[in-house]
């Protein structure tokens, strides 16, 4: 076995990495905190939120009012902008000092970068992209549920002898917590050493998302020929779901969507988690563009439509009333994160 940085016997507490940008905490961090609170209550462990950055004064005040027991705030000028090397160097020091038992991070680019480097520095186990977390009844060990093979296989992973037990969790897996009203939690500010030599990478520029690129969309609402006249509802649905709009070739030809939104062999091969396909016949030149979706919902009034071969949920009906009904449900019962 490879020697752990510290033993399970020395390890205490559940930590959650509180990712932030421009003074705002990442939603996944809040989701994780809520789940971690459940686990901490079950095991009686202390729950701490880890903040890392340049000037954390404003964020400290916000996070101290969240449902956690302690804030560990690690500030250093060279940590103002995230780079994996600098953040890992700083967090490694703090973890070795304080020896948490469990360390959870959101499976964002930054979260995965940081977790990936830390796991090697600490010689510990890291379970990626968990779709659920639990504590093993007999041992109190963290159990991470993950999927592999394109979502076809589910595995439960545990890390027995090494600490901290690390896991990353996808955004949207756990619900956001309800707001709490509480007195501010303790804020610890451990000092860290961050020499310039440990920050080799420079962030030269950052750009927020603009322009149409549906290839990265996690959620897609797709308009086919059968969606004629229903684009306003399609757009409302996409908005309510935080989804991008995609289109079949026919829909693009008709001018209902830009060519950049065309899905399929000569368009975009998308890899969404969720695809809702409205009024598309399902020709193979189209379906190859959504075949990698985890879940496909298809609505078409033709019961023979090929799209039903490629869908998890099939509705044989006209597009118009069904899309309107779904939009109405989303309005009345609340949108999804």
């Amino acid at each position, binding site marked *: 076995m490879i020697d752990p940085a510290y033993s399970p016997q020395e390890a205490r507490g559940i930590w959650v990495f509180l990712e932030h940008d421009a003074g705002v905490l990442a939603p996944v961090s809040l989701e994780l905190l809520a789940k971690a609170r459940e686990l901490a209550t079950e095991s009686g462990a202390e729950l701490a939120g880890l903040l890392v950055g340049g000037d954390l004064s404003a964020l400290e005040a916000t996070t101290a009012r969240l449902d956690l027991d302690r804030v560990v705030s690690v500030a250093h000028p060279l940590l103002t902008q995230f780079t994996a090397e600098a953040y890992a160097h700083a967090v490694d020091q703090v973890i070795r000092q304080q020896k948490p038992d469990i360390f959870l991070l959101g499976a964002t680019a930054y979260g995965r970068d940081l977790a990936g480097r830390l796991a090697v520095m600490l010689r510990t186990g890291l379970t990626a*992209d968990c779709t659920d977390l639990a504590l093993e009844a007999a041992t109190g060990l963290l159990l991470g549920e993950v999927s592999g093979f394109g979502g076809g296989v589910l595995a439960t992973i545990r890390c027995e002898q090494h600490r901290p037990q690390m896991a990353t969790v996808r955004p949207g897996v756990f619900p956001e917590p309800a707001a709490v009203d509480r007195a501010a939690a303790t804020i610890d500010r451990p000092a860290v050493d961050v020499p310039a030599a440990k920050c080799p990478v420079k962030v030269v520029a950052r750009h927020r998302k603009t322009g149409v690129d549906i290839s990265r969309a996690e959620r897609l609402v797709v308009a086919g020929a059968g969606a004629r006249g229903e684009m306003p509802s399609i757009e409302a649905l996409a908005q309510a779901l935080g989804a991008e709009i995609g289109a079949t070739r026919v829909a693009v030809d008709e001018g209902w969507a830009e060519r950049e939104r065309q899905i399929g062999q000569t368009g975009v091969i998308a890899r969404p988690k969720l695809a809702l396909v409205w009024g598309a016949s399902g020709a193979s030149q189209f379906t190859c563009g959504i075949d990698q979706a985890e879940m496909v919902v298809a609505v078409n009034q033709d019961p023979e439509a090929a799209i039903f071969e490629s869908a998890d949920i099939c509705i044989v009906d006209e597009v118009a009333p069904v899309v309107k009904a779904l939009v109405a449900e989303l309005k009345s019962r609340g949108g999804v994160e």
Partner: protein
Amino acid sequence: MTRELHTLVCLKVVPKSEEVGVDRETNTLDRANARSEINPPDMNALEAALALKDRFGGRVSLMSMGPPFVIPTLRVGLAMGADHAYLLSDRAFGGADTLATSLTLARAIEKLGDVDLVLCGEESSDGATAQVPPGIATWMDVPQATYAMDVDFEPGQRHLVVTREVRDGEEVLDVPLPAVVSVKVSCNEPRFMDAARFALLDSEASVTTWTADDLGVDPEHLGLAGSPTSVAGLKEAAQASGRRREMVSGTPEEEGRILYDRIVEFLRGAGARGQEAPG
């Protein structure tokens, strides 16, 4: 650059995801009938490496950890334009989680001694952890740039300019070499291989196989022994056997309601576990 750029691409030969199942009796992976392919993001990594070679010259090596039966698949990478392939093959490597895997690859890369840039796909289609590229970088104590969509190189300077995808958009990084870069799947279109070269490739000459002994790594740090994590349980996910094709019918209002429930359930990740949808 005073010497030519040597790029090393980590390639994993994986079973085609849709053809892998779980043996319901033993609850272990059943990949007996699954065809092999090069992990799709690794094809993008190889294309990125070959594009750099087109522009700046130098060499592209492939490295893969796996059993000897992956060699024919590695020839595909050579036929695309890579110069040599290294196969890390030893029973001792088996059962490795990402910590042991990234250590094995890192030590093999260091053994080559002159690698400037390690290119990987962002994650593999089987495990999908995305942890190996940062793992390799950390074992080698070099910087990393993950989820790259574009990798540019300044000839004459030992650094890369990498555009990568982050949570709310993208950022541009200046990364000194040597470094490890992982690329987003579909960030480019992998060039088709030279079919004539593929037919003529002599594996003996183009593929070097290394065992655990060749790497000189403590056996306690390899394979199952070197893996802090273990699999406690395995099962087939609900939608594994093709598409569910669940018919939903009723009035449009009923259909809308059921769709809402299914969508919320799915987004909570509960689809496979059959948990009740909130709200």
